[in-house]
């Protein structure tokens, strides 16, 4: 069993080109579980946790967050606390303290679980995933990259370097929320994030993503349009929730879970928006 541990990005990419079938490993919190369940039988491993470029969070014109940054590091990052607290908040709800020590941003994206907690936050923050392959780098929005449960559209030989996102402005209002059977170690039954800007009391540039509700992360454009330019208002938030619920039904059709998820989506969305608006008043 080959277990490769590149210590530079160039080396990681050339090893990946040489061994495109090897399993890319970071924190192992999905890979080792899938192996145990017999859903994955790695031919070899390519451990990316020693690649310095993937371990960084930096704040230039945009913010870059490396793929091998752990949820603990996201949670505790002073940079994110200042410029994208939404991502830190989402990371603080992942799994358990033990899982957050290990699970990474890149792993959350690459595994493409519909219940992934970072994905709605990254989508609402309008993050672009930076991907490098032999042909160079490309950027992709999460709704384009993630095509279904467990299906992240990476080509052989491509590696997620991290995400870039724009720092939140002072007028930004946001919230993240999650419903599970308990606080820790519960796969989200529903999770979601909203980011908007409040200008003169009106909501602008609303970006709303509800996860664990559809086959892949989507922004709810209909609900966003309802809110655009309006004043925060409880009835309006509920109508936005109804629009989300309707859009989920259109996306998934009636399913066993719909009797639970469709009404919950209404309340869940309304609460997300109320929390974002309340955070604005503080």
């Amino acid at each position, binding site marked *: 069993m080959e277990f490769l541990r590149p210590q530079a990005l160039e080396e990681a990419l050339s090893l990946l080109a040489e061994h495109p079938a090897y399993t890319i490993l970071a924190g192992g919190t999905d890979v080792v579980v899938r192996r*145990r369940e017999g859903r994955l039988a790695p031919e070899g491993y390519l451990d990316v946790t020693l690649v310095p470029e993937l371990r960084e969070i930096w704040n230039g014109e945009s913010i870059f967050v490396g793929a091998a940054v752990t949820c603990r590091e996201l949670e505790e990052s002073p940079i994110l606390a200042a410029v994208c607290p939404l991502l830190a908040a989402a990371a603080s709800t992942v799994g358990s303290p033990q899982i957050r020590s290990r699970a990474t941003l890149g792993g959350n994206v690459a595994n493409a679980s519909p219940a992934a907690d970072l994905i709605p936050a990254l989508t609402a923050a309008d993050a672009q995933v930076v991907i490098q392959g032999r042909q160079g780098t490309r950027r992709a929005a999460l709704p384009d990259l993630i095509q279904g449960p467990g299906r992240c559209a990476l080509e052989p030989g491509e590696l997620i370097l991290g995400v870039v996102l724009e720092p939140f402005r002072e007028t930004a209002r946001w919230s993240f929320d999650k419903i599970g059977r308990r606080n820790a170690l519960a796969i989200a039954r529903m999770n979601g994030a909203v980011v908007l800007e409040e200008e003169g009391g009106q909501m602008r540039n609303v970006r709303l993503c509800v996860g664990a509700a559809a086959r892949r992360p989507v922004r709810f454009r209909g609900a966003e349009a309802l809110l655009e330019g309006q004043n925060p208002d409880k009835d309006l938030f509920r109508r936005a929730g109804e629009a989300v619920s309707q859009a989920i039904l259109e996306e998934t059709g009636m399913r066993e879970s719909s009797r639970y998820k469709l009404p919950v989506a209404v309340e869940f969305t309304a609460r997300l928006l109320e929390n974002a608006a309340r955070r604005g008043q503080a």
Partner: protein
Amino acid sequence: MKLEFILNDKPVSLEVEPDMTLLDLLRERLQMTGTKRSCGVGECGACTVIVDGEPVNACLYLAGQLPGRWVYTVEGLSKDGKLSALQQAFLDHHAVQCGFCTPGMLMSAKALLLKNPHPTEAEIRRALSGNLCRCTGYEAIVEAVGAAAERGSS
């Protein structure tokens, strides 16, 4: 692969398969059975150990990622045959029922106190949230960690 790492302050060197889990390495290769095996998928916390200061599930940690790391297990808590203050607090507060979750609880609590010697009750509960106790004796465990913190040593 030849693996060298630090286990409970002592250097260890051995030949292992890199895709072996740290849990198997501890229990099957090193016969250190204080770290418990339960769910095997990172959901129960019974196998919690500390790697480079962070609590982790040993069942999800591959040996190939261990070179040069500092690992602490429950066997590393006592010194010269004497229980640590944290272990003593667990006894004093009857925080041990069947005992199966205890090593993991101790290591999660130890990881908390290393970083935050004076946690609030909410911080203690959050730090223990990845550890299940099927006897449901959580109150006594939370009290024990709080008491150890008050005594200022873990």
